């Protein structure tokens, strides 16, 4: 019976759209996360569609507005800096959940674990024997000449060989529904707080949509993260003190730092709360100095220690790197991971995975042309109109030119930038990103989205079921970044596909 509901909804031409939200929903030519047919999770997808139909557009809108109002009141915001102004904005919440079947998640989880394992092996190798360079798998200058390569890391032992303790993998789906990795975030990936908050928001605002669904829970993240932070603490410390190091309240991700500190139950410190004495790190408390053993830092490498990296950094802790090199404190993520999530190194990831693990990548890359290489540059210049051109050093969706959508002037500007500094660029074909039904002013409409699962690694890797689904709210837009008008969805992972109607 549940299977018949979507069909009924789709054939509802006689109903006004406000009563049948899916009546004029048409995701073609893209893969739709809710309506495209595939084995596994059919009952849950059909039920969600039917329930949204029952709730109706007007009630959906009213509830979605109330949910966003909650976010504002709770200060669940990020800060956008434009010119001299800082504006607190919410990450818009779309109330139609994105559903991953147990089978889909099994693939994603295995793929993310594989990737994290390869990233860590790669980092260990390039900071030790550099076999992968000697074996000619990856060009030496791509690694050693990379601005994120840290000579300070050479030969430095890392517990369990884990450099990337927290990893966010950006994954998209093409028109066939294949999962592809778009980017690795191995420095300080953000967004996990929204995964958990979105679930809370969903449970508060749409209990009827969730009723009876058996979903993998997401509120275990803080405990898992803390366990990993304790695991990686220096040897011989009985009850390690973990802290979260944040740039402070002016950072755009401050809410997330608060969230993580609270979920772990550890102090959120700023650089000036820490002091280093005799290569040991202490935090300044009302009872004097207390030792600190693991630092989950949400500050970039450059800002960690003004005596080693940027001398003008006010955010860091003088002497921190010294204490770390002495093995008295652990940093998560390790210093120097940026060389592995670089967009140029990304192109080599399938080969890196095969080299270290002897396996093919479970989650393929998007085809990537490296403009520092002659063929890559030539191909990119010849096909600018059909390619997405990205700067390798940027994040947050800045500096991207999407060929098919660009004006002539924008194409020309991209060409000039490419020629001026080819090694700063990569290009990729435009992927027809999958879409999901999203509540818009015009009704339920398809909008493109991606997925960022979060992996936590101490001794072993654990992946938070689901991840952050970021959705481009503008019609036709492929840019999902929060700083550029993206929103997010609650991401459900079904506990068991075999189960029928919830």
């Amino acid at each position, binding site marked *: 019976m549940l299977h018949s509901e979507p069909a009924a909804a789709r054939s509802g031409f006689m109903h006004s759209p406000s009563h049948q939200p899916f009546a004029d929903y048409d995701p073609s030519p893209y893969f739709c996360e809710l309506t495209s047919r595939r084995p596994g999770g059919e009952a849950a997808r059909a039920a969600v569609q039917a329930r949204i139909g029952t709730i109706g557009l007007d009630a959906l809108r009213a509830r979605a507005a109330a949910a966003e109002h909650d976010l504002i009141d709770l200060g669940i915001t990020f800060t956008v800096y434009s010119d001299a102004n800082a504006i607190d904005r919410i990450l818009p919440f779309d109330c139609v959940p994105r559903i991953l079947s147990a089978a889909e998640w099994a693939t994603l989880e295995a793929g993310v674990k594989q990737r994290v394992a390869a990233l860590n092996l790669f980092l260990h190798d390039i900071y030790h024997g550099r076999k992968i360079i000697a074996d000619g798998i990856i060009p030496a200058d791509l690694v050693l000449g990379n601005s994120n390569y840290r000579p300070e890391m050479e030969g430095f032992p890392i517990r369990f060989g884990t450099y990337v303790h927290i990893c966010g993998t950006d994954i998209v789906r093409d028109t066939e529904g294949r999962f592809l990795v778009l980017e690795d975030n191995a420095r300080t990936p953000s967004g996990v707080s929204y995964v958990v908050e979105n679930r809370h928001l969903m449970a508060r605002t749409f209990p009827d949509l969730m009723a009876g669904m058996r979903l993998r829970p997401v509120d275990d993240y803080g405990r898992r993260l803390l366990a990993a932070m304790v695991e990686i603490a220096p040897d011989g410390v009985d009850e390690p003190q973990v802290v979260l190091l944040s740039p402070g309240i002016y950072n755009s991700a401050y809410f997330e730092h608060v969230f993580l500190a609270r979920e772990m139950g550890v102090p959120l410190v700023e650089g*000036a709360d820490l002091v280093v004495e005799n290569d040991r790190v202490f935090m300044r408390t009302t009872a004097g100095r207390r030792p600190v053993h693991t630092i989950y830092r949400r500050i970039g490498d450059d800002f960690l220690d003004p005596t080693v990296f940027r001398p003008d950094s006010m955010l860091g802790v003088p002497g921190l790197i010294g204490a770390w090199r002495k093995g008295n404190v652990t940093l998560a993520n390790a210093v120097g991971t940026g060389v592995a999530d670089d967009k140029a190194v990304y192109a080599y990831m399938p080969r890196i995975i095969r080299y270290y693990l002897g396996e093919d990548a479970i989650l393929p890359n998007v085809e990537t042309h490296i403009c520092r290489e002659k063929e890559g540059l030539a191909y990119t210049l010849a096909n600018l109109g059909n390619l997405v051109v990205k700067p390798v050093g940027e994040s947050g969706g800045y500096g991207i030119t999407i060929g098919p959508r660009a004006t002539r002037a924008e194409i020309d500007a991209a060409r000039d930038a490419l020629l001026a500094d080819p090694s700063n660029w990569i290009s990729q074909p435009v992927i027809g990103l999958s879409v999901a039904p999203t509540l818009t002013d015009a009704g339920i409409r398809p909008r493109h989205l991606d997925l960022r699962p979060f992996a936590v690694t101490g001794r072993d890797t654990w992946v938070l079921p689901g991840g952050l689904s970021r959705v481009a709210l503008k019609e036709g837009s492929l840019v999902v970044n929060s700083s550029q008008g993206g929103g997010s969805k609650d991401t459900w992972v079904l506990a068991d596909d075999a189960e029928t109607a919830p």
Partner: protein
Amino acid sequence: MSRDVPLLARYAEGLFWLARYLERAENTARLVDVTQTFESPGREAESWFALVRINADEAGFRDRGITPTAEAVKNFYLLDPLNPTSVVASVAAARMNARTLRPLISTEMWLQMNVFHRDIAATSDNELAGDRLSRLCRRIKEGVQAHTGITEGTFFRDQGWFFYQMGRLIERADQTTRLLDIRYHLLVPAAGEERRIAELAQWSGVLRGAAGYHAFRRVAPPSFTPRDVVAFLLTDTAFPRSVALCIAGIEDCLTQLRSRYGLRGTVAALERTEELRGAILGRNVDAIIATGLHQFLDGIQSDLNSLAAEIGTAFFRDWRPLA
């Protein structure tokens, strides 16, 4: 089962200021409210200037070229973001502290603070008009009181609680001395019965401003004089806004921090509280009035500042005296 969890010095400082800024906002609303009741037709500016005087803001007005009309004074203390002691600025500063304290305070505290801040920041100057002013003051007081109640019901009782209480109590003691100061010139030996009655009405206004009128009537002698009002606000041991009760509360917090949490560095602050207690309770109120209440209150305010400085230098990360 609670583990002894260390408290970041910066958090202790943030809690102290969070409470202090909110207490200030509440008391400023009380002062404004009470001043409005003193407003005499044709001499409004004069009544309102008393506020400027007790806050020692004469220079601030002069420097910014503000003529202290009734409207200007109300605006300065309620809505002026450039006046660091205005309600708007205090609530903004409290929210800023709450933001740094987000890892520590309850979600309910943060939610209320956030919404209260938004409400106060959106106050328009229409609300300063005579017929609406008292309602605005009530909204401010109630916002702070809601915060206080939520904090009482949800905030964890570890060391942080005591720093929070001390910030509140120091500010409250200070503000009570200012409330008293607003009418100190009425203590000049009175003429005639008619004048006496008019003055008593004003003192009742002061008591109402401190929410102490009914309590005072219960404990005061039947034929009370202004002296009794002064004694009540300075020395009563049961009235929550009396200076003596605030000092006792601070002493209590410091003692708890020392005995329960083993914090060293409380000695100097405890000495200051003892001195303050001596100054308030060690002298007869008549003698205080005879030698000059205004000077006495000034002295108490400066002692409270020294007390805050002792707490700040002993426990906070970067002690910075209040603007």
